[in-house]
């Protein structure tokens, strides 16, 4: 009989990926972290980590992120693994569940890496069928994450953004926008990162991932490696700023998987994400006020606190913008679509 947990909704703010070196400190300190995300595969056994997560789940909203379903496998998803994922969801009752647009199982082997698909009608039909199987089994919507890639396929008939958009239409899944993955793939395969973000259906994006990457130079080739082993670099903050400018605030995860630093570094990165998001929304309000005050307004007797407060951008938020490396444009485009988290 699964334990009953409070139904904690994931807020449209920053959270951190829970990693084993931090579990003890999370349990004793209970720091202010908006929400937690765990890799589903790490919680399919009965070890001490599982017991710890049950305790943390009492306090923190939870997202379960799968890395091993291999939604792109032509042979379909492994029913045993799907059942294990279902049990993890039943046990921890997460608010969000996500997986990747990738394959990692073929020829009877699990490669422990996320490989890209050939984006065509055949793959779309296979992935749509697999996503539908997963959503039917879990009885919930899942978010599908864009991939970091080092190669693409010559015979693809569409790009990844078109593929994801059609997947949303066919299955009703949501999307997880990994901004670092966008930067890595766009650099490695030479396309426009911002155009990729703009091409996704905004209302379907229920979560964002942020992480660092490594830069490897091999001969004339400079390749970005998605190693999740460093702070979020300025170029990714800048893309995140673009994404939030278009989407509005979204649950945003700081991912760190290799050379994991002390917990406070992750919490600090999460704070920056919140500050950046807040500063964008603050400036959007300021810009809207300026536009409104430039027009002749009918006299109103209603006095709002907001209308009177003409403060400058908060200092920390200003730092966040500075870290992103670019200035916030004065006139921001309106938010496209509403925010509909998968919750």
């Amino acid at each position, binding site marked *: 009989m699964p334990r009953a947990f409070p139904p904690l909704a994931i807020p449209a703010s920053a959270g951190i990926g829970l990693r084993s070196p931090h579990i003890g400190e999370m349990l004793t300190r209970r720091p202010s972290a908006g929400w937690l995300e765990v890799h589903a595969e790490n919680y399919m*056994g009965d070890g001490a980590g599982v*017991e710890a997560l049950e305790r943390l789940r009492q306090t923190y909203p939870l997202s379960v992120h799968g890395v091993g379903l291999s939604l792109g496998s032509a042979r379909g998803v492994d029913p045993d693994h799907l059942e294990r994922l279902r049990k993890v969801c039943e046990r921890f009752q997460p608010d969000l569940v996500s997986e990747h647009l990738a394959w990692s199982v073929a020829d009877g082997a699990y490669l422990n890496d996320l490989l890209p698909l050939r984006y065509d009608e055949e793959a779309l039909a296979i992935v749509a069928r697999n996503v539908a199987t997963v959503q039917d089994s879990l009885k919930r919507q899942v978010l599908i994450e864009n991939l970091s890639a080092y190669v693409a396929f010559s015979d693809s008939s569409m790009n990844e953004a078109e593929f994801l958009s059609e997947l949303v239409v066919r299955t009703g899944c949501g999307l997880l926008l990994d901004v670092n993955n966008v930067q890595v793939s766009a650099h490695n395969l030479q396309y426009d990162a911002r155009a990729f973000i703009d091409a996704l259906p905004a209302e379907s994006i229920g979560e964002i991932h942020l992480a660092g990457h490594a830069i490897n130079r091999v001969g004339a080739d400079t390749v970005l490696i998605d190693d999740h082993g460093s702070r979020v670099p300025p170029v990714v903050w800048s893309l995140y700023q673009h994404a939030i400018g278009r989407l509005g605030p979204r649950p945003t995860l700081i991912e760190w998987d290799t050379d994991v630093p002390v917990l406070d570094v992750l919490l600090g990165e999460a704070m920056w994400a919140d500050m950046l998001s807040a500063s964008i929304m603050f400036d959007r309000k300021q810009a809207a006020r300026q536009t409104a005050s430039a027009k002749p307004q009918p006299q109103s007797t209603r006095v709002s606190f907001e209308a009177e407060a003409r403060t400058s951008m908060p200092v920390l938020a200003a730092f966040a913008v500075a870290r992103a490396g670019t200035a916030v444009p004065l006139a921001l485009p309106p938010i496209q679509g509403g925010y509909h988290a998968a919750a």
Partner: protein
Amino acid sequence: MLPLEHLQTTMARSVLAIEPLATAKILTAGKADPLARLRIYQNNTRSSLTAVLMAVFPVTVRLVDERFFRFVASEFIRRHPPVESRLARYGAGFPRFLKTVDTLSDMPVVAETARLEWSIAEALDAASLPPRALAEFDNTDLGPSPDIQLQPSLRLIVSHWSILSVWMAHQQGAVVDQHSAWTRRPERVALWRAGDSVRLVLLDRANFAFRHSLKHGLGLEHATSRALALDPAFDLVAALMRLFDDGLVTDVRIPIHPLSN
């Protein structure tokens, strides 16, 4: 154009370095060489799975040197890649694989120590149930041969080699004296999860057989007779108290026998 399943099989075999990709024409990578980029996936797979094995077999790594371990791990990964994405299960076949490595043929203690480390990994991934105290059964008539349920994480290993001594010698703070540790001396080890660590103890033949019988559900009577057969001086009361003191007993039940009128 290859069907997707065929394409994925071809790529997977290339990533695992089983056979090279027949044609690079199916791949693109901007201005870069697609085959060089494909090697990133090969490297990711090999290095991440090697890291998994190194985390499970840290003492084995130290016994054979890290560079040699990485070489052997690469071969193991190529020949025996994971069959499922639950990596907590990956490495079960690694100790047996080490026995087939020619270079290690005169060092059987390496594979045996790896066997111990795999049992530790299994125990760490197993449930730890609330232990029962002996006093809880003071007023209960359990009959002559109750079933004693033990912690699911309990693992019992017997080896011709002094595997626990070797393992202990490589723990933090231990004084390493490999010459005395690497001896051909049978050791019987019981280990189980206690919180987020593992407890390991050496047992004599009788106590090992006693716990082994109980673990396999053969009942107290059978376990006792097995232990007494190996050691007529076997002390049942002491053995039972030790089971409870170790927190290994999770339940004691009266066995259900069919009515015989």
